[in-house]
C-alpha cells in the first residue's frame, strides 16, 4: 500500500497544527517514578541479598567447614537440579500456572534413561532420551491445561500420579543400576576443576542468565508478565496466551527432563520414587524468590538469590548436624518471616 505506517506519521508530526489547536495539558507527566531509598531497601531482591549475606556470615562464624571451596562445590550438587526446574516453575507461576508434576516427570524421564542404559545405549542418546521424555510429558500437561481449561494445579496433581504411576508400572520393585562410566562422570565429577564446578551448577547459572535476559529484556518476557497480570486483556492485546502457556509447560517438562539426566548421572540408579516430593521444594524456591502466586510479579534474580539462600542455609545447618526436619522448620519460618518482615516494616514506617 502506499503510505508508511500511519502512527509513525503521527509520531513525527507533533508540531504540525491539527484541525483544532491541541491545547497543552496543564500538568507534566514524569518519565520515571521518583526514586526513593525506602523503595529500594524494601525491594524483594535487596532483602534477599541481605538475607544471603547473613546466611554466609552466620555460617562462616558457626562452622569452620563452611568456607571451603570443595565443600561449597559439593553442596551445589544438592540444589542445582531443583534450581534448574525452579527457573521454569518461576515462569509458570508468573503466568498464574503451576506444575506439580515435575518430580513425576523426572521419574519418567529417569526411567527412560535407565532402561536405555541397561540396553547399552550411548550417553548422548541417553541425554536426548531424558530430555525428550521430559518434553513430551510437559507437552501433555500443556495440552491438557490449554485444551480443557481446567486449572493447572488440578491437572498437574492428576498427571503427578499418572506419570509416577507409569514409572511404577514399568519398573515395579526393580532398580536400574547400570550406566556407562562417561555418563556417570557427568554427575559425579567436577565439570571444571578450578574453581571446582559441577556440571549441574554450571548449567543452572547459564540457564539463569538466559532466563533472566529473556524474561526481562524481550517481548516474550513482557508478554508473560501481561498474561500473569490479566490473561483476558493479554489475549485481547494479541498475545497468543494459550500457545505461550503450552510452551511454558513444555519447557518445564524439558527442564525436569534435564534435571533427571543430571540426577541419574549423579546417583547412578533409577527407582520409581526418584525425586519424590521435589515439587514443593521447587515451589518454595520460586515463592521465596518473590514470584507472586497471583501472577505478573517476579524476577529471575530473585529466584536465583532464593536458591542460594535456601541451599546455603540448608548446608550450614546440616554442618551443625541439625536434623533435616528441624531445618525444614527453620526454612519454613524463614519463608514466612522474610515475606512478612517487609510488609510489617512498610506498615509501621510507611505512610499507609
Amino acid at each position, binding site marked *: 500500500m502506499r503510505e508508511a505506517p500511519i502512527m509513525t506519521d503521527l509520531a513525527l508530526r507533533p508540531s504540525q497544527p491539527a484541525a483544532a489547536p491541541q491545547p497543552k495539558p496543564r500538568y507534566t507527566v514524569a518519565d520515571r517514578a521518583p526514586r526513593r531509598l525506602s523503595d529500594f531497601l524494601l525491594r524483594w531482591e535487596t532483602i534477599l541479598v541481605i538475607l544471603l549475606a547473613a546466611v554466609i556470615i552466620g555460617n562462616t562464624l558457626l562452622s569452620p567447614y563452611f568456607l571451603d571451596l570443595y565443600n561449597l562445590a559439593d553442596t551445589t550438587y544438592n540444589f542445582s537440579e531443583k534450581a534448574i526446574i525452579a527457573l521454569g516453575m518461576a515462569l509458570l507461576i508468573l503466568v498464574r500456572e503451576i506444575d506439580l508434576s515435575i518430580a513425576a516427570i523426572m521419574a519418567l524421564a529417569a526411567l527412560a534413561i535407565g532402561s536405555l542404559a541397561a540396553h547399552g545405549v550411548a550417553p548422548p542418546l541417553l541425554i536426548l532420551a531424558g530430555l525428550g521424555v521430559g518434553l513430551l510429558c510437559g507437552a501433555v500437561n500443556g495440552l491438557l491445561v490449554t485444551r480443557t481449561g481446567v486449572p493447572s494445579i488440578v491437572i498437574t496433581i*492428576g*498427571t503427578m500420579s499418572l506419570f*509416577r*504411576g507409569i514409572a*511404577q*508400572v514399568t519398573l515395579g520393585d526393580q532398580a536400574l543400576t547400570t550406566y556407562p562410566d562417561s555418563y556417570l562422570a557427568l554427575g559425579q565429577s567436577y565439570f571444571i576443576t578450578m574453581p571446582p564446578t559441577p556440571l549441574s551448577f554450571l548449567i543452572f547459572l547459564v540457564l539463569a542468565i538466559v532466563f533472566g535476559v529473556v524474561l526481562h529484556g524481550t517481548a516474550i518476557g513482557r508478554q508473560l508478565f501481561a498474561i500473569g497480570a490479566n490473561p483476558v486483556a493479554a489475549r485481547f492485546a494479541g498475545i497468543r496466551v494459550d500457545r505461550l502457556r503450552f510452551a511454558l509447560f513444555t519447557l518445564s517438562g524439558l527442564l525436569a527432563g534435564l534435571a533427571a539426566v543430571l540426577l541419574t548421572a549423579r546417583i547412578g540408579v533409577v527407582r520409581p520414587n526418584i525425586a519424590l516430593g521435589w515439587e514443593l521444594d521447587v515451589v518454595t524456591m520460586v515463592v521465596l524468590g518473590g514470584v507472586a502466586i497471583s501472577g505478573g510479579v517476579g524476577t529471575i534474580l530473585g529466584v536465583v538469590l532464593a536458591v542460594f539462600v535456601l541451599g546455603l542455609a540448608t548446608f550450614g545447618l546440616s554442618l551443625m548436624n541439625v536434623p533435616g*526436619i528441624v531445618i525444614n*522448620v527453620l526454612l*519454613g519460618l524463614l519463608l*514466612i518471616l522474610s515475606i512478612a518482615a517487609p510488609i510489617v516494616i512498610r506498615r509501621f514506617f510507611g505512610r499507609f
Partner: protein
Amino acid sequence: MKRLATYREIILAAIIAVMVIGISIVAPAFGTRDTFVAVLNDTAFLFMMALAQMIVILTRGIDLSVAANLALTGMLTAMVAEHHPDLPIIVFVVLSTVIGLGLGLINGGLVAALQIPPIVVTLGTLAVFRGMIVVIGGGAQVDGANMGANFQLLPKLTVFGLSSIFWIAVLIAVACWLFLTRTRPGRGLYAVGCNPVAARYCGIDLGRQQLIAYAISGAVAGLSGYLWVARYGVAYVEIATGYELTVIAACVIGGVSIGGGVGSVAGTLLGALFIGLIVNALPVMQVSPFWQMAISGAVILLAVIINARAEARPDKLILPRARREAARVGA
C-alpha cells in the same frame, strides 16, 4: 433458595454410580454392604478434611498445612494421653480441636493480617508444624499401648455399623452446610472469594473471613488428628504425609473452584467419596499395586475433565429464540 444439587454434582454422582456398578461387576467382593460401610468409614477423614479445605478454597485460599496440623495435633494429644490415660474422651476431642484451631489461627493470622499469599504461608507452616513434632517430642513415637484404652475407644464405637468417625464427618457436613448457606459469615466466604474488591465495598472484611476459614480448617484438621491417631493406634512424625494433596484433589473433583467463590458441601462430599472409592476398590479388585497410582491419576484427570466439560460456558443468548440455530443451543 439453593438447589440441592447443581448439574455438575449430578454428573459426578452419576460417574460415581457407574463406577460402583462397574467395580462390583469386576470384583463381586466389592458389592457388599460391608464394603460400603468400610469405604465410608475409611473416607470419613477425607470427608471432613475436604469440607474444611473447601471453606478455605472458597476464599481463594489454600491450606497446604492440614496434614502437618493433623500430625502435630495427633502427636500432642497422644502425648497428653500417655501421661493422663484416664481422661474422658470429650477432653481429647476438645483438646485436639483447640490445638488445631490454634494452629489454624496462626495461618489465618498471617494470611489475614499481613495478606501474605496463602500458599506461601501454608507451605511454610506445613514444614514448621511437622518439624515441631520432632522438636517437641524429641521425635519419639507414641504407641497405642501407652495411650490408654479410653483414648482409642471413640473410633471403635459404631452406629448402624458405621464408625463414630463417619458420624462426626456427617455432623461436620451438616454444620458446614448450615454455615455456608444460612449464615452471614458463611455467605461472606463466597463473596470474598468471588470478588474481594466488591466484598470490601459491601463492608465485608476480607481478613475476618480468611481468619474464619483457616480457623475452621485448622480445627477440623486438629480433630482429625486425634481421631486418626486413635484409629491407627500410633502417633509419629510421618503420619498422613502428603495427605494435603489428596484433600485438595477431592475438593477439585467435587467442583470447588480454585479461583474461589464456587463450591458446595454436596459436591465436595462427592469428590471425597470418588477418591475414597478408588483407593478402596483398586486393592479389592486385585489390581497390581504397581498400577494403582497410575490408574488413580488417570481416573482423577478424567473426572476433572469431564466435569469441566459439563460446566463449559455457553454462548450468549442474544438472538430471539426462534432464530437460534438448533444445533448448538443444547449446551
